[in-house]
C-alpha cells in the first residue's frame, strides 16, 4: 500500500461513522449557542478541544456557570478512555518523528481509532507496510476532524430549524458492531467484550462517563487473565 492508498483507506473507513457523528456536531453547535457561547468560540472549541461528548459537557457547564476547575476536571474524566487508545497505538507509532505523534494524538478520537485499528492490527510489525501504517490513522483522523468542523459550522449557522432526530446517530453503534464483531477471534476476546459491555450498562449512571472507562478496564483485565490461563 502506498501513502495515498493508506490515507484513503483510513478516510473510507471513517465515513460510516461520520454519518452518525454529523448530527451530533450539528446539535453541539445549537447547544453551544443556547448556552450563551458566541458562534466563533463554539467553532474554535471544535478544533481546540475536538472531542464530541466533552464539548457537549463543556457547553452545558458553561451555560450553568460552573467553575473552571470543575469544568476542566469533568472534561478530563470524560476523555479518560482516550488514554487507552493512546496506549494501544503507541507501539505502532514509536518510529515516527514527534510532529507526527503530536498530530495523530490530536486526532485520536473514538471514531478515528475505531475506524483505523482493524487495519493497523492487520499490518505486521517491522514490515514495509508498517512504515506507512500511520497514514491510515491520519486518514481516519482527518476525515472525522473535517466532518466535525463542517457539522459544527452547520449547527452554528442553521441551528434549530433542523429536524432533531433522523435516527442517523444509530450509525455509530452499528459501525462499532461492524468493527468489533469480526475481531472477536478467541474466547478471551469474547469475554473481554461481554465484560466491558455488561459493566458499561451497569455503570451507565455514573457521571462524566467514568463508567465507560471502568468498563473498558474491566474488559482488558478479564481478557488478559483468560489468555494467561489458556497458556498455562
Amino acid at each position, binding site marked *: 500500500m502506498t501513502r495515498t492508498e493508506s490515507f484513503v483507506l483510513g478516510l473510507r473507513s471513517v465515513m460510516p461513522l461520520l454519518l452518525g457523528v454529523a448530527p451530533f456536531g450539528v446539535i453541539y453547535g445549537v447547544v453551544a449557542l443556547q448556552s450563551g457561547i458566541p458562534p466563533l468560540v463554539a467553532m474554535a472549541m471544535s478544533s481546540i478541544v475536538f472531542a464530541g461528548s466533552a464539548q457537549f459537557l463543556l457547553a452545558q457547564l458553561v451555560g450553568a456557570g460552573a467553575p473552571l476547575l470543575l469544568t476542566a476536571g469533568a472534561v478530563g474524566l470524560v476523555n479518560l478512555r482516550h488514554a487507552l487508545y*493512546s*496506549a494501544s497505538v*503507541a507501539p505502532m507509532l514509536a518510529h515516527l518523528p514527534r510532529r507526527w505523534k503530536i498530530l495523530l494524538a490530536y486526532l485520536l478520537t473514538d471514531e478515528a481509532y475505531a475506524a483505523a485499528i482493524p487495519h493497523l492490527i492487520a499490518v505486521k510489525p517491522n514490515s514495509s507496510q508498517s512504515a506507512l501504517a500511520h497514514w491510515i490513522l491520519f486518514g481516519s483522523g482527518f476525515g472525522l476532524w473535517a466532518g466535525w468542523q463542517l457539522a459544527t459550522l452547520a449547527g452554528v449557522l442553521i441551528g434549530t430549524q433542523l429536524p432533531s432526530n433522523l435516527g442517523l446517530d444509530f450509525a455509530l453503534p*452499528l459501525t*462499532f458492531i461492524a468493527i468489533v464483531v469480526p475481531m472477536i477471534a478467541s474466547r478471551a476476546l469474547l469475554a473481554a467484550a461481554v465484560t466491558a459491555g455488561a459493566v458499561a*450498562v451497569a455503570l*451507565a449512571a455514573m457521571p462524566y462517563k467514568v463508567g465507560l472507562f471502568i468498563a*473498558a478496564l474491566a474488559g482488558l483485565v478479564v481478557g488478559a487473565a483468560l489468555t494467561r490461563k489458556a497458556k498455562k
Partner: protein
Amino acid sequence: MNLWWLMLVCGVITFGIRYSFIAAEGHYQPPTWFRRLLPFVPIAALTALTAPELLLVQGEIMFDGGNPRLWAGLVAIIVAALWRNTLLTIGSGFLALFVLQRI
C-alpha cells in the same frame, strides 16, 4: 470567567490524555502485564461504548419491543459475524430498525 482560557485548558487536557502513552513510548519500560492488556483495548473500549446504546432506553435496561435498537443491533451483530462486511452490517441494522419501528 474567560471562555477562551477555559477552552484552552480543556484542549490541553484532552490532548495530554491522547498524547500520554504515544509520547512515553520508548522512554519507559512497561511491565509485561501491561502489554498483555493492549490487544483487548479495541474490543473492550468499543463494546463499552456500544452496549449502553443498545440496551438502555433513557437510562433503563429494556429487553422488549419498546427497544427496537436492541433487536436491530442484534441483527447487525449476527450479520457482522456471518459476513464480516461493514456496509452490509450497517445496512442490515438500519433496515431492521426501520422495519421494527413500523410494526
